[in-house]
Every structure is written in C-alpha cells, then in structure tokens.
C-alpha cells in the first residue's frame, strides 16, 4: 500500500527547498575587483591596462543555479600607465566627471554548481553592447579577516574596439581584439545590508 505524503511533510520539504534556494547578495570588494584588458600593439606585443574603480552587487542562488547583478565601472579610472594614451582613451569613452559604464548581468549560466558565464549588457553614454563573460575560475571561501563568505573568480571576453566605439589615433598602434580579464571578489551581505 502506498502512503500519500502528508501535508506537513510537503510543507517541510517546501520550506527546506526554499532555504536551500535562498538568493544571497554579494557586494564587490574594491581591493579584488578590476576590469583588466589586453590590447595588441603594433602587431608585436600586448599592451595591458585596467579600470581601477569597479563597484557593484551580485545576487547568487547556487541551489537554484541562477544569479543576476549590476556592476559600475568608472570610465575615468582607465589606467594603462601611459598618461597620453589614458587621456585619449578617456576622451574616446566620453569619460566626463563621474560617468560610469553599467554592466547588467541578466543571467548567470551554471555548469554544475558553479557559474560558467555571465550574460549581460554593457551600457555607457548612448551605447549598449551584449557581453558574455566566461568564467576561467570561480570559488567561494570564508575570508578569515572579514569573517564572511567571499565568492569570486576570473572572467574573460574578447571585444572589438569598433563595437566599443574606440576610434583612436592610429599612431597609438593598437589593434584588435581587446581581451577583457576581469578579476572579481564579492563579500556576502547579511539581510538588510
């Protein structure tokens, strides 16, 4: 004889599933969140630079294998170590005042229990560009100094300079594509933070 599950068992199961599937908010830490980029120079070598000021929040639901987020990248924080190039890049990006580019993560694509890619849209000034950032690694750990869970990883994407509207003086000798290398770590936020 088959026993039907009682109502109380169903409620318990439902509560357990909800607890496991609770979405958790994480806030990007400025010490370990940077958008680096690699840009071919003169057909010879790779010029590297980065955006220094990156902030944002990501919501992760590892049990439900889903997530979304919002990241702001200060355009004037672009930094290649070459002042003349930085000035030209700020101008090409329209980096005025505290203008930021916003990367909206619409979806995290999971493989197993880890995010394998972030699918989102980068928006700045009047432009918008769909960008999928592939995870090269992803991990969560308990940070002993913060005494909190931290999740993060390395993400990468190849972009065409033209798609970013980066028409620079050819004397800079910069080619294509631009490879983004994003380092991100984000601290778990308790409810209400």
């Amino acid at each position: 004889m088959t026993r039907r599950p009682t109502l109380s068992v169903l409620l318990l199961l439902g509560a357990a599933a909800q607890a496991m599937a609770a979405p958790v908010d994480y806030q990007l830490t400025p010490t370990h969140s940077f958008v680096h980029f690699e840009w071919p120079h003169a057909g010879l070598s790779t010029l590297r630079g980065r955006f220094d000021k990156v902030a944002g929040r990501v919501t992760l639901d590892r049990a439900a294998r889903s997530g979304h987020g919002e990241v702001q990248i200060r355009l004037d924080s672009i930094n290649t170590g070459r002042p003349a190039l930085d000035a030209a890049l700020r101008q090409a990006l329209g980096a005025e005042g505290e203008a930021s580019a916003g990367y909206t993560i619409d979806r995290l694509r999971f493989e197993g229990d880890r995010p394998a890619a972030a699918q989102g849209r980068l928006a700045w000034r009047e432009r918008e560009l769909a960008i999928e950032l592939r995870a090269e690694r992803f991990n969560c750990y308990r940070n002993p100094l913060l005494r909190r869970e931290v999740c993060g990883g390395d993400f990468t994407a190849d972009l065409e300079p033209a798609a970013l509207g980066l028409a620079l003086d050819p004397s800079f000798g910069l080619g294509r594509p631009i490879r983004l290398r994003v380092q991100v770590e984000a601290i778990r936020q308790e409810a209400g933070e």
Partner: protein
Amino acid sequence: MNVRGWLLGMAALPLAASSAPQVFDLDPAQTFVHFEVLHFDTSTLRGRVGPVRGEVMLDADAGRGRLGLVIDMRTLDTGFRLLDARLRQRDLFDVDDHPEAWFVAERFRFEQGQPVEVTGEFTLRGVSAPLTLRALRFGCVEATGTAPQRCGGDFEGEVQRSRFGASFGLPLVADRVRLLVQAEGLRRR
C-alpha cells in the same frame, strides 16, 4: 653586479666579423612588467611595474644576446592605493630598501632567427635567483623614414616569491607569481 656599468659597457661590444649584433633601447611606452598571483584560490590579483628601462643586444646569426633591465619598484601599481602601500612593505616588495629590481641575461635561445627563450639573473628585494622568460610572440617592424626598426614581443616567466623573501600572506595568496612582460625596443643607429 653593477647593472648601470654593465649596460654602459654593452655599447662598446666589438662587432664580430661574421655576424652583426643589433642593439635595441627599450621603448618605455611599450615596456612593462605585469604580475599575476592567485588570491585565496579564487581570483587573480594583478599588478604592474614600469615603464622598464634597459637595452638588449641580439645576434641571431651567432645565436647569442645580452640584456639588462632596470625595474623601478616605486612604480608598482595595482589600481588600489591601500593595496599598493601594503605591497611596498618590508615583508613583500620592501620598496624603501630595494627600490630597483634587475634582470640581466646572457643566455638566449633562438629559433628561425628569433629569440624564444632568455635565461638570466633576476634580482628583487636584493635577492638574486635564476629566471627564464619564454617568448609568447616576437616580431619586428622595419624602419621607415625617421622611425628606427622596432622589435618586441610578449614574454612570460614564473617566480616563487618566497625565494626572494616576499612571504607575507602565504599560502592564502599563492607563492607562484606569473610574470608577463611586454617589451619593445628601438634599434640604436
């Protein structure tokens, strides 16, 4: 080794009859060292040092070369000032006591006329250890008009930071540090 004296001496290298050594001055706008280290097994912390000064002699026909680089550690830049300040401290780069790092190399391996590997002595924090840099790509752009020939590429190497006494944060911040060197030189006429 006195690097500056050694560099000055390189200009006086005799020209062998059978081959033509070419001397390049590194282009400070295109010569930087980037480093990568894994943080808590989770994400890659990156930093930049440079521009790097120095010069390189290549003699592909004879299969030999020499280079001397001076790296100003005060230019260390991760993009976050507090982190830079921490990295400059004594238990990491110890920049006040050792403001310069050097790479001096005399063992070059060529394939089809191009350098593919360079082995020499890397000095950081006053500690010297062997370092091999592998070329990921290398090429030259020929001279045009007033612009001299430009040769350069990307090189990668690896060091254990504990070997140089930069031990803070081990093992949560990895010992293995990957070096990514962008280098371009302008041929001296």
